[in-house]
């Protein structure tokens, strides 16, 4: 008689199912998912967030690598309060905002990377242009406001969670998101006007 281990992964829990060879008995134990596994699971959203921040594929990859290094380095500091993905995003943004400050000091231009729009064989050039305009418009939103907006859209945070994370009231968070939306709209309108000549 021997026990065979099975793995069922959840967002933050791993369900270990032990089975006998003859499948007659099972026992289960729940353990929290290792933080490394949670980080691996977060990578797609983390890369998307990084691309939205950097508007460049390559820069986003570097940013994600740096984030992972720092996160792994500081895993002991994670206290299991709040959301793990929120903690990782904050590290990402911290690294990026520092880098961007240095780039601006070096007066490096920041243009959106067309590679960000995945090559899906769009029939419409207009659609690709719209996406690029959107990327550029994102740049018009302040860092904190855009970060909050991305957490809403990409990571599925609620207003309540964001308010708790930022230490804002619900009204303040609502104002922040409203500002972000309206800034996006204004930037898009300006781009449209530019094209119209």
């Amino acid at each position, binding site marked *: 008689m021997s026990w065979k281990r099975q793995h069922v992964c959840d967002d933050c829990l791993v369900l270990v199912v032990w089975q006998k060879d003859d499948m007659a008995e099972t026992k289960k134990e729940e353990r929290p998912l290792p933080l490394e596994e949670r980080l691996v699971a977060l990578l797609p959203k983390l890369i*998307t967030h990084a691309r939205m921040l950097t508007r460049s594929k390559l820069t986003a990859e570097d940013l994600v690598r740096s984030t992972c290094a720092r996160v792994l380095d500081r895993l002991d500091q994670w206290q299991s309060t709040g959301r793990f993905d929120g903690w990782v995003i904050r590290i990402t943004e911290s690294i990026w905002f520092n880098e961007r400050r240095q780039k601006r000091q070096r007066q490096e231009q920041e243009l959106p990377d067309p590679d960000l729009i995945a090559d899906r064989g769009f029939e419409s050039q207009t659609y690709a242009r719209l996406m690029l305009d959107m990327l550029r418009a994102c740049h018009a939103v302040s860092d904190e406001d855009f970060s909050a907006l991305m957490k809403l859209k990409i990571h599925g945070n609620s207003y309540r969670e964001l308010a708790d994370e930022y230490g804002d009231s619900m009204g303040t968070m609502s104002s922040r998101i409203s500002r972000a939306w309206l800034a996006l709209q204004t930037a898009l309108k300006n781009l449209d006007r530019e094209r119209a000549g």
Partner: protein
Amino acid sequence: MSVQAETEFSDELMEKIVAYVEREEGRDAPLSAEDEAMVRKLLETNPAAQALADDLRSTNARLSDLFETSTEVEVPEHLATMIRAHGALRTEREGGRATGKVIPFRAEPEPAKRTRSYAPLAAAASIALVLAGGGLLYQNTVFDQERQQFQAELAGAETTLAERVTELQQLQTEQATQERRLASLADENGELGQQIAAAEAERDQLAGELESAQAAVDSALASADADREALLADVADLNSQLTTKQQQVGDLTAELTSTVDQARATTASLEQLRDDHQALETRVATLGSDNRNLTERLSATEDILAAVEQQNTTLVAAASQAEDAMRVAQAEAETARSQFELEKLALGEALGVSDQELAEADRRTTELATERDALAGQIEQSSERIAALEDDLDGALGELVSSRSTNDQLAAETEQLREQGSWLNQVVGYHRLYAGTPREVEVSAAEQEGQQALTNWFKSMLGRNFSVPDLSAAGLTFVGGRVFAVNGIPTGQIAYHDRQGQLTGFCFKPGSEDQESGPTFRQDDDLNLISWQKNGIDYVLVGWMDPAELGLIGTQLQRNYGEGI
């Protein structure tokens, strides 16, 4: 969207419109119910607000598209592998078993160590120094300028050298530290390797012991399993037997209870039948006695009546005679009086009538008057007596009529009882005659549609429908039936066999209208009979079976058997 729309709404209102659109997306943007209603109404009525909301929805959709297109990301496999390797390492460390493999996670390829070799530079500097010195020695004057130049260069080089030497020393220090650390780690690695080897040896030993123990345990378990299986089989077998026995006990108990109940019911029924029979006999005796009394009384009344009539005739004749005598006496008295008066007058006139003769005549007159009154009183008494006798006669006649009616009824009942007794005797006779013979039944139940043929026969001969009751629950098996005549009256019989195969007959014939009686139990030697009357039908159940059982069946038939209609 026009700029006017933007300036048309305050920041607060625009924020509420944004919150409204956010809530449409399913997010928990704060918006009170009142504000939500207000915005909804605004969007219905204000084109600028509608345009703003549409722009927001469009922007939201574009942003969602952007995120979707950008989420087609390929996660670098090496990144995931490195992260997992870090996790494995951390797990091992936390488990207290560090491995020799330390895989540090690095975001970038490890930069090449800047292990520059400063020897050529130092040599060059030295050579430069030597050359510079030699040149200066030999060409002090000529190369003064060059010396100054070289000095300047030398100063620069020295400065650079000093910096480089300092850097070299730092690197060497760092290298030494790293080497010491490496040595320490190597020692630690060695110790750990020894520990691992020892642990592995111990593990192998324990594994061997475990295998042996496991084999022993497996063997013991197999043996125990076999014993357990055998015991379980025994237990199952015993349980099965126990269940069977319990079932049997249950069945027997139920049967016993049922039998006791049946016996009690049969005994009660039998007692009831006996009481009814006794009551009937008493009634018959009482009726007989009453009949005799009434007959005697009738005779006595008739004698009295005859005597009264005779007496009446005599009295009437005497009264008539008395009246005649009285009339004659009255006539004589009148004649005598008249004659006396005439004689008296004559005598008086003759003056020769004696006082004694006159007195005698008065006395005679008085005597005749008294005799006359006596006769009148006698006549009156005779009349009163006649009237009384006439009343007695009327009463006696009325009693006679009533007695005759009761007598007729008793006679009818007696006759009926006599007839019934005669029918039952006849039924008993037929039962004994046919039982056990090949002609026990005329129509057999084994015949095709035998039961239907029998009921049709009953209908045609008795004029009514008689169904065949199912008495199988009482142990009676239907075998057939017949119709036979008793005193010219057809009697139907449904035949059964009891558990001993003996004939039990259920017989019936049309009886007196609306008569209801019974059930009545009687015995004829070894045969037992239960009889009753219901809805103008006489019934009897006859057989050799236990009287209590027969009585029970008869009672049930008496209560439940069809109306014969």
